């Protein structure tokens, strides 16, 4: 399968601490890849490096054949930040139309993106007056509007009800079927099953990179939640043994 994103030996230092310790991963084109891991494990940092907004210490990140952050990629890569980043003093529609305009797109595409995230009825509402979950969907609409080749979505479904989450995941998979590459971070394991591929990251290290079925097989359980716990414990044991042998 063709590779859309290639991360090689990525080391990132934030503040005074090294938070990614040499991550390597391949993300295939036309797929939804889930990025999972505990809070503080480095999911957002890895995504920032792929978008090209993170200063990296060493290693390379290549997106669609170009180094991450290259000017040319700005039309092709869409980024949803973890905290909603939309203008609170504009309406949902005005936000979507503004972000659409940056890509040379018009009101039609913008209004469609608003409807796609289920905010059709709130289109004329100021973002500042939206509920938390609505605001994060307004932010999502602004990332989807340009229909980019690569979509980096940092916890897009947080705070959404099960029906909406289901719809959003159906949309992500539809986008991938049309050839887009999606990297979606999440805390929620039941979402992991909807990904084509999973990256499990812990304390700045990649501990698994496989399909959901591959991970189930490796851990020997059906439940992904349980599978992750086992992988993490297995890794802890190897780490302790290694330390003990030193």
């Amino acid at each position, binding site marked *: 399968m063709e590779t859309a994103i290639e991360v090689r030996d990525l080391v990132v230092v934030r503040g005074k601490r090294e938070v990614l310790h040499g991550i390597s991963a391949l993300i295939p084109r036309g797929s939804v890849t889930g990025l999972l891991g505990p809070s503080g494990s480095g999911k957002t940092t890895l995504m920032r490096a792929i978008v090209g907004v993170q200063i990296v210490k060493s290693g390379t990140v290549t997106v669609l054949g170009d180094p991450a952050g290259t000017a040319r990629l700005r039309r092709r890569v869409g980024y949803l930040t973890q905290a909603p980043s939309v*203008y609170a003093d504009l309406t949902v529609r005005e936000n979507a139309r503004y972000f659409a305009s*940056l890509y040379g797109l018009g009101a039609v595409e913008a209004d469609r993106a608003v409807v796609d995230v289920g905010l059709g009825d709130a289109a004329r509402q100021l973002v500042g007056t939206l509920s938390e979950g609505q605001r994060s969907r307004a932010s999502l609409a602004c990332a989807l509007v340009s229909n980019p080749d690569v979509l980096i979505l940092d916890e897009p479904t947080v705070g959404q009800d099960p029906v909406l989450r289901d719809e959003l995941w159906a949309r992500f998979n539809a986008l991938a079927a049309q050839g887009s590459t999606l990297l979606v971070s999440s805390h929620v394991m039941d979402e992991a099953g909807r990904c084509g591929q999973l990256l499990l990251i812990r304390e700045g290290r990649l501990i698994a990179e496989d399909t959901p079925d591959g991970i189930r097989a490796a851990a020997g359980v059906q439940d992904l939640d349980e599978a992750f716990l086992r992988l993490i414990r297995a890794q802890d044991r190897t780490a302790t043994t290694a330390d003990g042998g030193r």
Partner: protein
Amino acid sequence: MSPRILLSTTGRIVHQLRHDRRTLALMLAVPVLLLTVLYFMFQGDTPPPGIPSTFDRIGLIMLGIFPFVIMFLITSIAMLRERTTGTLERLLTTPLGKLDLLFGYGIAFGLMAAIQAAVAAAAAYWLFDLTTAGSTGLVIMIAIANAVLGVALGLFCSAFARTEFQAVQFMPVVVFPQILLCGLFVARDAMAGWLQAISDVLPMTYAVEALQEVGAHRDPTGAMWRDVAVVAGCVLVALVLAAATLRRRSG
């Protein structure tokens, strides 16, 4: 830079202001109220014929100072909000160029300043009988140039503030010295040499001198155009410096 993105960014900023009616109302009303106070302060003071009245002298300069101060503050806060809410980081991952954003602010707030200056000038000339030898149009033009200077300095200074508390502190640092030393309180040639030297490098000095030229001469003078050019140059320098503070990558 792209004209399309510049235009939509300008439009976006104007839309944001339009949703904030109270800010708009304050922006237009406050200068007029302050001019009113100024007018009554100097009402009793009648200079001998041939000498401009105190209101003519100070009111004219105020028309240039209001837009500068207000636009400086509004821009610093607006830009700080772009940084703290993450919209700036997001914008910098899109095809938007740094200058699209900076000029967008310059144009949008420059337009607001034009309206503000027109309202304040209308009040000054019609209600309070402000008299200048030169034309009202030139006064408004200089007021707008000064507003854009405020915007440019605000864009630059906001890079050094992490919080709103810090951002408002730049007002006394950047704005007050310029007001004190621009020749409003003490004529520039009556200042100590070192104060004059500081005054010489502060851009507002030139805006005020340009206004004084319009006040004293019927036709635009060479000195006035030179002063306006200096202000415009400072705007460009501040915008370039502001662009340098916008980093696409951070730690």
